[in-house]
């Protein structure tokens, strides 16, 4: 099982993940329609891209936008969750060693202590997001089974990873489960709302272009995101 998960399954899931993300981006850009979207993308492309960058930056920097400043706890939880979910798979020492071995690439490793701290932060922020989804009526009403599934898919690799790395119970079982869950997440990204992994940049950028080209940007004003 281990050989399968770290062999064909790994390459397949990576291929689906990378290919799927590229497809999502290409599909998004090809689907932009000047007349239907009512944004003159081509005529003001350079100007629009500058405003796209402003819009994206305002939302990937903690507290840079009105939204983030209005909800500080949610902002901290969101950013910790995302730092961990991107940072740990790429920079945990246990992963970088294997990446070097299997994929012939060796990114810089984060110290294990930093990774442990990020894992703790991940669980705290994930717990906050789950509690918020249950407790707040305005979030609960939006939640359906797909949202629960997606949350489970993102949390599962962390739970199984901790169980494996701490040798809790059957190490080989949890290790296999950890790899499997990680691969499920990679495969799920292009096909679920996890596609915001790439589509966030498209969507936020598009609204930035919208405001930059049509809704005031050409007049020289900048929207105070």
């Amino acid at each position, binding site marked *: 099982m281990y050989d399968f998960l770290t062999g064909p399954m790994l390459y397949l899931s990576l291929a689906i993940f990378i290919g799927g993300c590229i497809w999502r981006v290409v*599909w*998004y850009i*090809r*689907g*932009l*329609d*000047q*007349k*239907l*979207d*009512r*944004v*003159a993308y*081509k*005529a*003001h492309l350079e100007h629009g891209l500058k405003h796209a960058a402003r*819009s994206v930056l305002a*939302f990937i920097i903690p507290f840079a*936008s*009105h*939204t*983030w400043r*209005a*909800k500080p706890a*949610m902002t901290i939880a*969101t950013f910790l969750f995302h730092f961990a979910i991107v940072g740990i798979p790429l920079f945990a020492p246990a992963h970088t060693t294997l990446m070097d071995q299997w994929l012939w690439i060796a990114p810089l490793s984060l110290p294990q202590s930093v990774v442990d701290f990020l894992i703790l932060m991940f669980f705290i922020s994930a717990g906050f997001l789950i509690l918020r989804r249950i407790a*707040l*009526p*305005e*979030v609960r*009403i*939006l*939640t*359906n089974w797909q*949202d629960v599934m997606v949350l489970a898919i993102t949390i599962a690799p962390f739970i199984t990873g901790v169980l494996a790395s701490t040798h809790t119970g059957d190490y080989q079982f949890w290790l296999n489960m950890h790899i499997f869950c990680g691969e499920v997440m990679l495969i799920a990204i292009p096909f679920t*709302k996890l*596609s*915001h992994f790439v*589509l*966030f940049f*498209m*969507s*936020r*950028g*598009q*609204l*930035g272009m*919208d*405001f930059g080209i*049509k*809704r*005031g*940007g*050409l*007049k020289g*004003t*900048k*929207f*105070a*995101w």
Partner: protein
Amino acid sequence: MPQGTLCRALPVQNEEELKELLADTGGKKYYAEMQELDVDADKLAATLQKTLKSRLRTWLNICAKCGMCAESCFLYRIHNRDPKQVPAYKIQSTLGEIVRRNGKVDNKFMQHCMYTAWAKCTCCNRCGTYCPHGIDMGVMFSYLRGLLFSQGFVPWELKIGSGMHRVYRAQMNVTEEDWVETCEWMAEEQQEEYPLLEIPVDKVGADIMYTCNAREPKHYPEDIAEMAILFHIAGEDWTVPSKGWEQTSLSMFAGDWEACTMQVKEVYDAMERLKPKRMVGTECGHAHRATVIEGPYWAGREDGLPPVPCQHYVEWLAEALRLGKIKIDPAKRIKEPYTIQDSCNYVRNHGIKKAVREVMSYLADPSYYRPMEPELEHNYCCGGGGGFNGIGLYRNERNFALMTKRDQILATGAKLVIAPCHNCWDAIRDLEEHFAIGIRWSFLKPLVVHSAIIPEHLKPQEEEEMEEEA
């Protein structure tokens, strides 16, 4: 497929049909027919296939369901934070559902969508600016309105409104003759005080072509007179077109994109015909949005811009005051606290943030300014935007929605509200009528006319004339 005689998928075709709709007081028969109206699911699916592209599909699919949009919506806040007023819920439970069912929805569901699209969203676009993913639910509701209109599920007044644009190329039954006569009448009325004042019609090559809102010639002709006085005082070379003078588009509120195109092309044709250096539009938010912001796309213009540069009236006024074309009598400056209503349509959605404040800096000492909280591009809708003001069926909901603006105004402590937008002006008038909080509200034109210094050469030359006669 039962289609009513009044309520049906087809838009208004001619004046006769329009008059039949108008004769149905309050839309009684119209709404009764709506109960039987069938949904053409195949047409709906085909429209989705053709028009729901990657931007809207992505917005529906990647919504994180985080609820961060909730607080951005004034209707959510004023409805005691009712979760059913969360923008993401409102759009997912309407357009989202139509897409998931690929158009296979029934009459009851379409009526639910109609209620949500026109009574629970004013298309103010505030939510989109707060959504971390940049999901603009106002844009999606506008799209939904288009789907609903194409199936005949549209409030009675807006079916009439879009019909007006189709028949008269104006939101009200004001014909070309009515318009030109009103201009002549208003010019004559002012000539005692401003002997040289004219309202030039169809002058080719003027610096400015002015366009307005049909309710000005229909109900508020003094607005046209004030505009003429100010252009006259400022010494502008200006004109109005006999055709293509109407800048508004109730069809935009209705989701009747075909009528939007007809309407805006009429204005653009006037620009092409008269070749002005620029167009200045009246103090109306949605008129500006329809003609200047969205219009180029309906007219198929590749650069997304109107044929000539366009300004909102507040921009022209700010410029005229800045350049000294209009001077304010210091003795007539406003000497009381005032606040400003920022229109969603040209402040949030076109970045015209400074002009009104600049104009007011000439009209009153800045110390009198009491900003609303929030203001500028983050300001809340007046409560009657997106057609909400005009829909009798949802009058109670609209009146309830006005409480946001009422409370914002009350918090400023000001009794004078500057509202350079017809829609906002109406909403604020109605909130005063409904809640009686003791405020006054005004466009900028009457305030500037009241305070402007009339240049000597424009004043009546009575004494000289008398001497000459003697």
